[in-house]
């Protein structure tokens, strides 16, 4: 059986007599994951962290819309879509926070619910965290935010609370897992800008397979900035 052949070949290459020691070293590392050094850009705090996140989004060509409170999100999305000449229709999942928004404030915006369909033009998701080090959004798959919403529609709009902006990938994943009740979702999607390719003549073109356009609606909600 190939499994045993491969494992015994690996064991033989590594000295079979130390296999138990290797096993306990591996369990120990998994039980208490190492804290590797992080670069300074992954350790920023306060205003510096928020500023780094915003700078990275700008450099990636991501549109950023700030609102002071969650209540303003539906109207902000409608304004954003109409300013770009995009259809006033989007699809979202069953996410509690997205569901609780006052959608009637944007009465001309049609909101569909469920996983993305082939002809959806705009997908809306909520990110569970943002990592300031590279302007990366962290999303978790599930009925709250079906993963297809991040990839099938041409335009992806992501709602993010400012308090969910953390310094590093490590912190972002910790936040995702905490919000997900400690369960690893099928996919954790780290999104850093919209879909792109450089495969034709070396020129960067947006919208290779996923969204051409990515917008972040940042909810300041109680966040203090000096």
């Amino acid at each position, binding site marked *: 059986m*190939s499994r045993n052949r491969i494992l015994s070949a690996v064991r033989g290459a590594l000295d079979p007599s130390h296999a138990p020691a290797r096993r306990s070293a591996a369990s120990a590392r998994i039980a208490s994951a190492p804290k590797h050094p*992080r670069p300074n850009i992954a350790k920023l705090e306060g205003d510096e962290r928020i500023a780094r996140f915003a700078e990275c989004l700008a450099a990636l060509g991501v549109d950023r819309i700030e609102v002071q409170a969650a209540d303003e999100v539906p109207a902000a999305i409608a304004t954003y879509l109409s300013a770009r000449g995009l259809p006033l229709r989007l699809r979202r999942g069953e996410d509690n926070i997205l569901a609780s928004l006052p959608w009637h404030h944007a009465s001309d915006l049609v909101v569909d619910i469920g996983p993305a369909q082939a002809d959806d033009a705009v997908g809306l998701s909520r990110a569970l965290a943002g990592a300031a*080090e590279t302007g990366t959004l962290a999303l978790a798959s599930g009925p709250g935010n079906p993963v297809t919403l991040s990839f099938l529609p041409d335009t992806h709009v992501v709602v993010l609370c400012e308090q969910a902006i953390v310094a590093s990938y490590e912190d972002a994943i910790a936040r995702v897992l905490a919000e997900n009740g400690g369960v690893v979702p099928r996919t954790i999607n*780290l999104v850093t800008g919209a879909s*792109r390719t*450089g495969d034709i003549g070396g020129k960067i*073109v947006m919208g*290779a397979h996923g969204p051409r356009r990515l917008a972040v609606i940042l909810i300041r909600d109680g966040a203090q900035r000096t």
Partner: protein
Amino acid sequence: MTKTAAFEAGVSAALANEALQHALADVPAGFVAGRARQKAALPEFEGLRRTARDIRDHTLAHLDAYLEEFERNAVSAGSTVHWAATADEAREVVLSICRAAGARTIAKSKSMVSEEIALNAALEAQAMEVVETDLGEYLIQLRGERPSHIIAPAIHLRAGDVADEFRLRHDHLDASRDLATPEVMVAEARSVLREKFLAADVGITGANFLVAETGSAIIVTNEGNADLTMSLPKVHIVLTTIDKLVPTLADAWPLLRLLARSATGQAFTAYTTIVTGPRRPEDDAGPQSCHVILLDNGRSELLQSEFRPILRCIRCGACMNHCPVYCAIGGHAYDSVYPGPIGAVLTPALAGVGEAGHLAQASTFCGRCEEVCPVEIPLVSMLRGWREQAFAASDDWRSRTFLRAWVQLAKRPRAYGLAARIAAAILSALAGAKGILRRLPFGERWTRQRDFPAPQGTTFQDLWKRRERDEGPAP
């Protein structure tokens, strides 16, 4: 024709290929400059390389234990784990999963392991349609070529080549349509491939890393094609090798911080996805089953050889981007799945020294590959190791005699110094005022592609002696 002769013929053809030379000329301004910018923007870059190397070494030194941990955790997340000792076995596993799924169309995200096992041909032989969805891979699939670079498989093509190919292959579209810009062509490929995504029964991806702690695969792309591949079809296959493990998610971040910076010169790729098993009971999207195939194909043997450090490789392609030989001849001339310095070290290990030992000659030993490798693989000394093995196995009496004579001379400093002075004087005289030799006595093969700069002034040994006399012994 011997392997070496075939390789040399390929090199000559590549050097004479104007279109290829044009395409390769962009590498320094693109990937190389991009990496330099990222390195300059991250003061901790060099420290990260050491951390990354240590993580990979630790994993390889405990590989049996992490493989078992990975298997346990992947299975408890709902994945099926398959083990394949050889390329044949891996193909058989993929085929049986596809048959069981009744697959007619298979969407594939970029995977060098699938190139290694020649998967597409095997699937097509079973009348299944395989569609490469990474744009570069799609282009070379249309052209029946193999990747010429591990992260930019169509780097040898120019925009005009792509337009010609699309006009020929997308024959359901208006033949007179505008294909003047990369934007138009990307949009066309997007709509053609979107149909394939929606029709696919099985999605096959590789994995950049496997995480033992969680039983996850980590997959990075810029296009988002891996995400559609793993989320739309009802079956997801992760085809990967046993060396891709990291112990924990915490161990993945230092590697991921280096991967894109070393590869494309981005701080992070657009999409980094941690995928763990099939759809959950509450999910309304995602595949119903997830299979992880762990292929060995020679890696367990490498683990106990002097070449173990090559298994640290995270497939960023920095070594080829910075290689003067790769940048002169491109990837196809290597005629191996993995080109460039990594290919010249890995291919003989996987295919045997008789098949690919000659690839170690495709190096100037300048060491740039080693300088930029994010996991500090000693590529130059490994290339030297293969050269030694190839020499030991060689029956080319001319090169053996020449090298033996050279060794005898090099062991005698006085005789060597004298010979060097005589040779320098002769070459200098032959070159005349221009200082350039268009043909080298006994070295016609060297000067076939380039001129030889004649020695200027005195020999290195004489210069060194003078320097020691003037400045005292070197420290």
